[in-house]
Structure formats: structure tokens, C-alpha cells
């Protein structure tokens, strides 16, 4: 990390940066608005498509590296009975720069990095991560559902991002470089951003009101695998996968084969521990037979098992699970309830 890690960029810098990168043949992914008002990260072919009006992108950052569905291998049965098996080709060679994700989502990459590279190194995930430089935008207006701070993050958290951008009201921005990848990007964007004065202060961190203590929660979880609490807390949960699919750290997946008579592909698809069939054996036995067990697994995994195994809480407080839940299931209330017990 070089001394100089702060850069100053004038209003309109994003447009210039994106155009510059695009003209270099770099794939640019940035927030794009849809008709229904949602904003999501998507590859852009010009800076014009980019929007900056959002609290957070609707779908989590993880899908750029761990797509919802991807081909792992392709196979074709030959006339002689042999089977031709091919790995699905690696992601494109060219770089990718991701603009506009929030610090909570980048923090979630730490969780994913751990899982996809412990013991066995998931090639596809790693290749996608390697080609991407992540330019996160610091959060200015968290909403009541946001709770990154109690889980160790911050609206200004730099965890997981190569460059963190603090946008000022006038459109100019302060860019904080956190990694060598970020440095490389800034070199490339020399024309867009210049080194900032050492006294350029960072903006104030906005308040996050929600508070709880993951340590205390873990202590309770340690002792309460069996507790009536779970049945009560999970009653309203209808067992859909929207919280897990929108969660930036959830990473469960399924592997399925699809195809026609002689050809097919093996795919990796997101899966969810909320689904009733997730752990069901072919015999009919299901280690997690009810929604209570499944909801418990979700909380336990994020706040107990994952910290025990990998040393960090598998929740970044993005609040998507609260916002997306169709029946009003609220993880933070549940955690509050746990803390109060």
C-alpha cells in the first residue's frame, strides 16, 4: 500500500471513469435503474445508463462472482458410448470494474472468499474475483433496516473494496484506495482523479440506529440449540428463499444436470436453507424437518457456526432480508429478542 491512498475526483468523474474504462475494453458493471424503480448492478455499455439514486442495489454483489446459475461442465455422449466432458470455459480474460456497490456488500465478499477458498479453491469464484476491481460507494443515507455497524461493518467500511468512494453533495468525490488492485485502477484513471490533499477529511459516518451485540447473541446461541424460542420466532416464516437469495453472504448451492438426449450441462444454482427440501434425504428422512429447525440454522450459521469456523459473523447488516420479507419477518427483532433473553 503506497502512502498516497486518497484521491480527489471532480463532479462527473464517474462518467469519465466509466467511459475511459469502456474504451479500454474493460467490462464495467454499475448500478442501472429498471422500470419498476429497482436498481441493480449490470454491465453497462455507456456511462449514461448509470444511476446514483439508490440506497443499495436490489440484488447483492455476490452474484457477480457466484452467479445464481452457472454451467460447471458440459458433456456430450458420443456414438461409441464415450462421453465428452468439458469444463465450462473460464470467465473472460478482460478486467472488470464494479462501481457502486455498498460497503456492506463488499464486506460480504470476505465471507464468500473464506468459503470458496478454504481447503479447496473454487476456481470459478476465484477467477471472477481476480478479474474484478471493486469500487464501492460509501453509504450516505442508511435506512431503518440497515444494521451494518453492530455486525462489525460501517457505512464507510472499506472491507472488501479496492476503492471506496465518498461522494459529496456537489458530485465531486474522495476516493480511498485500499488494495493494490485499487492502486492499479487509480493509475489507470490518472486523468479522472488526482491525489488528494493530505488534509482532505472524510465525511462524517452516518448513524446506524439499530444496535445489538453479536458476542452476546453467540453466547446465547451456544446454549440454546434446543429452545422453544425457535418455534415461536419462525412461525411467521413461510419458508421462501428471498432472504437467502438477497443475502450478500448466503452461499448455499445446488448442483443439477440438465440436458437433452445426448448432451447436457451440470449447473451450479443458488439454493436456500429455508427450503423444506434442502436437507431432505432421498429416503424421506430430513434432518431439519420443520421451519423452526431451518430458521434456527440460518441464525446459527450466521452468528455462531460461521464465526466459530471462519472467525467472522456471516451477516453484514445490509438489511435486505428485512426489506424483502413478504410477511414481515425481522431478523433484527429476533436478534433483539435473543439479546433480551
Amino acid at each position, binding site marked *: 500500500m503506497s502512502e498516497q491512498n486518497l484521491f480527489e475526483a471532480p463532479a462527473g468523474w464517474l462518467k469519465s471513469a466509466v467511459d475511459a474504462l469502456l474504451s479500454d475494453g474493460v467490462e464495467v458493471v454499475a448500478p442501472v435503474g429498471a422500470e419498476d424503480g429497482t436498481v441493480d448492478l449490470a454491465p453497462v455499455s455507456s456511462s449514461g445508463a448509470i444511476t446514483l439514486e439508490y440506497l443499495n442495489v436490489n440484488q447483492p454483489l455476490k452474484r457477480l462472482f457466484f452467479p445464481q446459475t452457472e454451467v460447471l461442465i458440459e458433456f456430450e455422449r458420443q456414438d461409441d458410448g464415450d462421453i465428452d466432458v468439458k469444463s465450462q470455459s473460464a470467465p473472460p480474460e478482460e478486467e472488470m470494474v464494479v462501481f457502486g456497490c455498498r460497503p456492506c456488500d463488499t464486506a460480504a465478499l470476505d465471507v464468500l472468499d473464506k468459503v470458496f477458498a478454504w481447503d479447496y479453491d473454487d476456481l470459478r469464484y476465484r477467477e471472477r474475483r481476480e478479474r474484478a476491481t471493486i469500487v464501492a460507494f460509501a453509504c450516505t443515507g442508511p435506512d431503518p433496516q440497515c444494521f451494518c455497524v453492530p455486525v462489525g461493518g460501517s457505512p464507510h467500511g472499506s472491507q472488501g473494496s479496492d476503492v471506496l468512494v465518498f461522494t459529496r453533495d456537489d458530485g465531486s468525490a474522495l476516493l480511498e484506495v485500499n488494495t493494490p488492485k485499487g492502486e492499479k485502477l487509480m493509475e489507470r484513471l490518472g486523468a479522472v482523479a488526482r491525489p488528494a490533499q493530505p488534509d482532505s477529511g472524510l465525511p462524517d459516518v452516518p448513524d446506524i440506529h439499530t444496535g445489538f451485540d453479536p458476542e452476546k447473541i453467540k453466547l446465547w446461541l451456544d446454549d440454546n440449540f434446543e429452545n422453544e424460542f425457535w418455534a415461536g420466532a419462525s412461525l411467521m416464516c413461510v419458508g421462501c428463499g428471498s432472504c437467502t437469495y438477497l443475502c450478500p453472504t448466503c452461499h448455499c448451492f445446488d448442483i443439477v444436470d440438465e440436458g437433452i438426449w445426448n448432451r*447436457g450441462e451440470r449447473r451450479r444454482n443458488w439454493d436456500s436453507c429455508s427450503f423444506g427440501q434442502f436437507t431432505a434425504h432421498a429416503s424421506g428422512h430430513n434432518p431439519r424437518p420443520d421451519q423452526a429447525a431451518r430458521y434456527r440454522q440460518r441464525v446459527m450459521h450466521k452468528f455462531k457456526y460461521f464465526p466459530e469456523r471462519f472467525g467472522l459473523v456471516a451477516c453484514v447488516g445490509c438489511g435486505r432480508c428485512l426489506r424483502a420479507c413478504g410477511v414481515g419477518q425481522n431478523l433484527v427483532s429476533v436478534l433483539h429478542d435473543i439479546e433480551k433473553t
Partner: protein
Amino acid sequence: MSEEKPKKDGQDKWEPRIIAFLCNWCSYAGADLAGMSRFGYPAPIRVIKVPCSGRVDPLFVLRSFEQGADMVLVSGCHPGDCHYTSGNYHARRKLLAFRELLTFLGIDPRRFKISWVSAAEGGKWSSLVAEVTEEARALGPYKEFPRSVSEGVSDEG
């Protein structure tokens, strides 16, 4: 499968793939009769026999498209003639509603045919197949529909 690929016998004309579900008692017998009576009909039709048109699940239609069908035909006994007394009446309600749904979703209803062909209607079968095959040829390959194995295209969603 690429529809444009030349056929193995060297014939380079594209032919539609039409999957037909025929009830055992009427339409299949009708097709049989067409054969026995030496009525010719175009080759692209591929027949799957089912006990009754009432056995045809809309899933079959969907799956056929996924597997590469350019047209799907379901054929059963004429109303009132069902071997199982009412299977074709059930089929009629379900399949017409299903077609309504497909149409609403922009899946070209011309690619999903329903017909009644009795065991005695070898001639009707023959002319029906000729007619729908001609239509399928005119419609061309159903490229829009996402097939089970895409031709080299990754379809990450």
C-alpha cells in the same frame, strides 16, 4: 440442437420438429388407419402415444418446446367419443386454458395445436398433418423459446 444444421442424409432443407401426443384409441388409430390406407403425410411429425388426450399434461407441451419442438400437437377422440367417456372433455378444458396462458405469455399459440381425429379419420389425420406441417414450415424454427441445451450460449440469469 441446431435447427439449421443440415440433415444427415444430405438434405439441407430445414424441417420443423413437430411432437404429437395421440390418444391410443382414436387419433393413434386414425394415424394407423392413414398408414394402412396408404394416405401419405409429411414426415416431420413425431408421435408419442398416450392412453387418452386427458393424459396429456401441459407439462408435456412445455417440455417438448424445451427439447426442441417447433410445434406441439395434441390429438384425441372427438367430443363424446372418448374411450374413457370423458378424458377428452377434461383435456379440452385444460389444454385450451393452457393455450390461453401460453398466448398471454407471448408463446405463439400457432405452435400449439389441438385436434380431434377419430379412429376412422385416416384421411383427416393425413390432411391435418400436411396442414400443420406446412404451417410449421412457414413459421420457421422456434428460436425464441429457450431450449434445454443452448447452442454454446451461456444463459446465466
